[in-house]
């Protein structure tokens, strides 16, 4: 297996000892099949035990290890060393406050995610004894893609609007709302609408589309945003121009 000496430049910041972040470089002999996370683990185990970052599954499903790699939001466990040159810059996800080293404060995201009521609000209640709701494969397909979000927040780092307007509830939160809105079992759209159709909701989005480009799971939050905008526009017309039509 081929190896390469790579300079891994990592943003370091410890609020107890540092006034501001600095960059620390480590030289790591990396196997070509490694991901950037492997290099960080090597550093942690062999070079510098004080380096802090989040990680767990190493298979791009737990969403822990989002970071900026050469300026792009990536999962460190899916950023392959062979795709990079001999210098790799690793920094915490932008648009989030840094807690320490590569670890960011994600409470803002968690609160926004929860605010859109990301759970099934059943159209009609069904007792367990009646078994499952019927849902045809084609009905499942209408929202399946939006269930795949791993909450890694790469889309928030990629979103220029979230950087400028921190109140924007952002791509992943809107996608998850859209996911439930599109679910044939759900009847809660109007409960979510007041949040996602608000000024901090979809209308902040200027459709740059960067969220969908960086999504490691191909969720296409930009597509969800556009569909929500369209649906909200139709709502508005119905309400204002055709008030006799029931919602």
């Amino acid at each position, binding site marked *: 297996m081929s190896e390469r000496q790579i300079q891994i430049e990592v943003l370091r910041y410890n609020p107890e000892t540092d006034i501001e972040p600095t960059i620390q470089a480590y030289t790591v002999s990396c196997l070509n099949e490694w991901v950037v996370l492997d290099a960080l683990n090597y550093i942690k185990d062999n070079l510098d035990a004080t380096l802090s970052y989040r990680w767990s599954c190493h298979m791009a499903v737990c969403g822990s290890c989002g970071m900026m790699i050469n300026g792009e939001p990536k999962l460190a466990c899916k950023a392959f060393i062979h795709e990079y040159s001999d210098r790799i810059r690793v920094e915490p996800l932008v648009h989030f406050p840094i807690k320490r080293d590569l670890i960011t404060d994600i409470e803002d995201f968690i609160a926004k995610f929860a605010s859109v009521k990301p759970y099934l609000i059943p159209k009609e209640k069904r007792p*367990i004894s009646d*078994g499952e709701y019927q849902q045809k494969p084609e009905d499942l397909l209408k929202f399946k893609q939006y269930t795949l979000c*791993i909450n890694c927040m790469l889309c928030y780092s990629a979103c220029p609007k979230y950087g400028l307007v921190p109140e924007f509830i952002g791509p992943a939160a809107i996608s998850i709302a859209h996911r439930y809105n599109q679910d044939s079992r759900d009847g809660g759209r109007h409960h979510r609408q007041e949040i996602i159709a608000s000024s901090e909701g979809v209308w902040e989005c200027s459709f740059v589309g960067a969220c969908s480009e960086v999504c490691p799971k191909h969720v296409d939050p930009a597509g969800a945003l556009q569909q929500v905008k369209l649906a909200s526009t139709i709502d508005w017309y119905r309400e204002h121009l055709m008030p006799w039509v029931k919602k």
Partner: protein
Amino acid sequence: MDIIQTDIAIIGAGGAGLRAAITLAEANQKLRIALISKVYPMRSHTCAAEGGAAGVSKSDDSLDCHFEDTVGGGDWLCDQDAVEYFIKEAPRELIQLEHWGCPWSREQDGSVAVRPFGGMKIKRTWFAADKSGFHILHTLFQTSLKYPSIQRFDEYYALDLIEDDGRCYGLTALEICSGQIKHFEAGAVIIAAGGAGRMFQFTTNGAIKTGDGMSLAYRAGVPLKDMEFIQYHPTGLPNTGILLTEGCRGEGGILINKDGRRYLQDYGMGPETPVGKPALKTMELGPRDRLSQAFWHEQQKGNTLSTQWGDCVLLDMRHLGEKKINERLPFVRDLSISYLGMDPVKDLIPIRPVVHYCMGGIHTDINAATPLLGLFAAGECACVSINGANRLGSNSLTELLVFGRRAAMSAIACIQSIPRLGNKAALTAKAEDSQSRILALVHKSRGSETISGIRKEMMQTLEEGAGIYRTGESLSKTCEKIAELRHRYTSIALNDKTKVFNTELLQALELSSMLNCAEAVAVCGRDRKESRGAHQRLDFTARDDTNFLKHTLAYYHPKDPPRIEYLDVVITKSRPGVRDYSGVRK
């Protein structure tokens, strides 16, 4: 020290912990619920489960059939009363998840689809493509957001249970972002903190699976049960240990050796079934223990393929076609392409067995109650003994749900019936001891050992001594080595003395948890002088029901190896018999 008062504290916010929290919130909205986890809930390792969750739901199936598959699959080490309860509750839990929005894959008519799984005589595995655990976890997490009474303590690491006079009254936990230690006062505690697969080098388990919950209970005097039973999943990617679900074989994938032979037929799982037409409970749909053991024999015979990542056999899914793979196994395809550079649509995928699951864990009864009053456990960290000596694929996701809920109901009954009259001074003193222990570890100035060094040696000795096949000699060596490592652990010192996100401190604590669990694995294995399920001894090759139709209980000792006791297996209706996975039975 800050005190956080709560009625019921849950440690771990994966499938079992979230299911428990929702049960509590639904039962009584006035209950104060603390959901404590070292990671945000959606990072929990439930997310990595792929294949699906078993439950009887179709007209061709029956509770008896699921029972027989599970008990036989577990080589009769299952407690049959617990299995009966589990199987009866399973369908209800799967439907409940469906009502909460879980995107289960569907049949054309709109009903939930089922797929075949290893060791199961009938198709009964509910699945959401090949991301079933991920969808279960996210459905539960998102549903939990409905309930304001579930107070989450994300990124809190549980340090010690606080007990007095044989009853658990809460715990201490480290707030990772501040380094502060908090004392959670609780009427009952539920541990749902996952398994300990990271004891091994080559594992499907994420970094967080370090046996913290098991060690927490063990150190408080609760025995760990049946720890010698470690499941190797037969199909892991050889370079990373990434799991390729059993669903690959359920959908019709086959295993071949370097000569292209479907070697499973040579290990009591034949005759060969037609390619692309898998028959239930035979060949590639045999149980995981048998398949992993067959790999070992092939390796001994020189029939495996030697690759840069070690010896492998090949998983052939090409005949399934691109459409079916994309629909049923999209994650498998993505993982194979991304991490191995091979596409199952056109390539044979090299795979080898990889440590996947701990059948053993915190000893609980059928109510998810541990012997320590006020302490309950559910999920992989627990051993309620439905899995016996070998878990069948797709029983564990259902187990999280059934026993997560059961633990919550038991905890409610406990706080209602058993008074909470702990000696306040004694409890406070214990919480302070816990804090002192951590401060001493952080501030210790000089150390001769490193965390990564000891961890590496632990992994190595487990691999050598407690792998797919074991001997008394190999296990004894491993016992000695782990005893030595536990001693050497006391000589580590941290480089990082700071408070905020001190992940080196977390690694030190996790290593200690793993060493405790690892010692239980080796000692229990050394003393079980028979072969059963996932515990295979080259020096005692037969199952011995006369002496070992028993659970092993390991009791912690702060310095010495654990004390071992045995407990009878509960048998209600199935006497131990022959595990027959040949296609000629009936």
